[in-house]
């Protein structure tokens, strides 16, 4: 097997230069790429072009609170670190804590999970609900775009061949109610069959904000502001009247390819459960 060039930058500047010159595939934790390129025991994984191992770039690690209330997560921050951090929104912590099992969560990174853009990736789903932004840097530019705009479809992203994901930014949120579900084959070590996050701000009996996002229910995470707005501005008493119309609208938002009936029914029931809890005056906090 012909061997590909492998770079091991130690600083972000070095990594940006290598990426600019060679367009090398960026390898972070390896939990997706090392598996998809695997050739079996004892054989070097087969990459088709140059590879850049960025694990050594310390500038891309860590979680920080910003003065405006946002939280910045470095691209190389692992799922385990995210799941443990008090700074991170609970919906993202929930999703990170349910990825694979302990050892995998110590390797898998947020940058890799977004960059890989698998329809079953766990972190894009809460990130899109939270209106998270991703920062893309090249040798001579930097842009910040919504994760929802970054992921174009299954394994397709807006990343240019000279850019690197450097961080993710979570804007501050003030949800009064949150809801998270992951359906997998087991409690641990399971790829998502279906995930759902939902969140609401209820003030003086009125739904001031409502959001949902569906993972593994289509080529990319599904979210619809138009559907969400059917519930926004309604009183808790009005929720039961608009619930079915909303659920129908959400059913049009998702586009599951495999087992569509199962995924559509389960999504509908999870959302109905959350809306019913709100309508019933569920105390603030997590709806379980």
């Amino acid at each position, binding site marked *: 097997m012909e061997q590909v060039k492998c770079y*091991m930058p130690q600083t972000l500047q070095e990594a940006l230069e290598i990426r600019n010159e060679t367009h090398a595939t960026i390898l972070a934790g390896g939990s997706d790429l*090392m598996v998809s390129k*695997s050739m079996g025991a004892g054989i070097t994984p087969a990459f088709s072009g140059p590879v850049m*191992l960025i*694990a*050594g770039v310390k500038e891309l690690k860590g979680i920080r609170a910003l003065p405006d209330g946002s939280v910045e997560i470095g691209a190389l921050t692992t799922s385990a670190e995210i799941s443990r951090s008090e700074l991170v929104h609970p919906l993202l912590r929930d999703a990170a804590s349910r990825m694979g*099992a*302990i*050892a995998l969560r110590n390797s898998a990174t947020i940058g890799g999970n977004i960059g890989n853009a698998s329809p079953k990736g766990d972190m894009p789903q809460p990130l899109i609900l939270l209106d998270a932004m991703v920062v893309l840097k090249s040798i001579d530019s930097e842009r910040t775009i919504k994760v929802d705009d970054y992921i174009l479809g299954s394994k397709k992203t807006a990343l240019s061949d000279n850019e690197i994901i450097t961080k993710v930014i979570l804007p501050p949120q003030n949800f009064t109610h949150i809801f998270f579900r992951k359906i997998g084959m087991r409690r641990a070590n399971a790829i998502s069959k279906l995930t759902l996050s939902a969140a609401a701000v209820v003030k003086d009996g009125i739904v001031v904000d409502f959001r949902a996002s569906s993972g593994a229910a289509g080529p990319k995470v599904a979210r619809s502001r138009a559907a969400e707005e059917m519930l926004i501005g309604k009183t808790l008493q009005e929720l039961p009247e608009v619930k079915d119309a909303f659920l129908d609208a959400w059913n049009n938002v998702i586009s599951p390819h495999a087992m569509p009936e199962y995924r559509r029914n389960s999504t509908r029931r999870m959302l109905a459960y959350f809306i019913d809890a709100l309508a019933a005056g569920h105390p603030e906090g997590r709806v379980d």
Partner: protein
Amino acid sequence: MYNDVRFKLNGKDMIYTGDPLRRLLDVLREDYSLTGSKEGCGEGECGACSIVKDGELVTSCIIPVGAVNGCELLTIEGIRDTEKGKCIIDAYAEGGAVQCGFCIPGMVMATYCLLNKNPNPSEEEIRVGISGNICRCTGYDLIVECIRLAAEKGASIWNK
């Protein structure tokens, strides 16, 4: 040629000069003859190849060796003669945790990380702690009891 990869392996400084894209598991087994770490699934899901990297449990089959530059690694060979390692291994032997044995090096490494962080785990915490380690003999109950035994018998070691 390739860039050097420098890391600490079971307390010894190593310089690896081969292809940095090789799987860490292959390098451990083939280059350093550390065959305690096993290959089960090769996809980071079964835990048979678990080692400790900078104090955290990782599966060595999904890590390219170049990604451990500057890291400290511990394999089953690096802990088996230590006080903590002996405590776990003795508890496994005493309680009969081992059936075919294939998953055991990984289980021991997971136990080591668990007890280092949580010297007195509940049954649920033990089950979470080894949730990434699959025993194909399905002998989980005895393994869980033996981890409990290691925590009790080694209380003075883990609480240090």
